[in-house]
């Protein structure tokens, strides 16, 4: 088999690697997917490129406890922790799905922002 020729080109819409130092993102979007069995919180920039994410499962909850609002609260706090120090000033929160984690995640975000 012939060796593949590496393609050289600029990919502006590509993933942001961790090679660069931590970017300062003044505006961001927090996506909260609150399903009945889990809550996933993803922090992205305005274009949609992911900065950090956290879910209830990664916070250590298992089974039926993943669907609880307290778990959603911890997941949201976890996800925002990395971004708070980067100086994010304006945030848009997009909530998807019906679940108990909707209000709880929103409350956690509000708490982190104001206290």
């Amino acid at each position: 088999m012939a060796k593949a020729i590496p393609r050289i080109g600029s990919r502006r819409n590509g993933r942001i690697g961790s090679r660069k130092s931590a970017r300062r993102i003044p505006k961001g979007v927090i996506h909260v997917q609150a399903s009945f069995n889990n809550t996933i919180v993803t922090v992205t920039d305005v274009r949609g490129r992911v900065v950090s994410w956290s879910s209830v499962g990664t916070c250590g909850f298992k089974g039926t406890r993943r669907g609880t609002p307290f778990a959603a609260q911890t997941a949201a706090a976890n996800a925002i922790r990395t971004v708070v120090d980067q100086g994010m000033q304006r945030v848009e929160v997009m909530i998807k799905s019906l679940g108990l984690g909707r209000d709880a995640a929103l409350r956690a975000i509000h708490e982190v922002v104001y206290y």
Partner: protein
Amino acid sequence: MSVVCPSFVHVNTLFFRSAYNVQVIMDENEPDERLIGRFRRDVMRAGVIQECKRRCFFENKQDESKKRKSDKAAKRNCRRRPQARNFTHDRQEATKNKKEEEEDNWDLP
């Protein structure tokens, strides 16, 4: 209803740039309870939860038309019997009963 993107059928695309049904903008130093209350009220008004329940299970045409009929009837009944009227009616009855009891003369002549 356009079929360009089926999940966007009930979304207010004329008003919002992205595919969301409800937008709540937070004021400065707004307490979280008020914000969440506003959000829940707007969601209820937009009818998102009803729509999700409807899409949970398949509904054949017969069931769909039955449901629409029963929803219309329920709305009509709601409008025909406002709760305020019943409340004042009970009060009047209670006052009437009291008056009758006072007029009753239990003493022997």
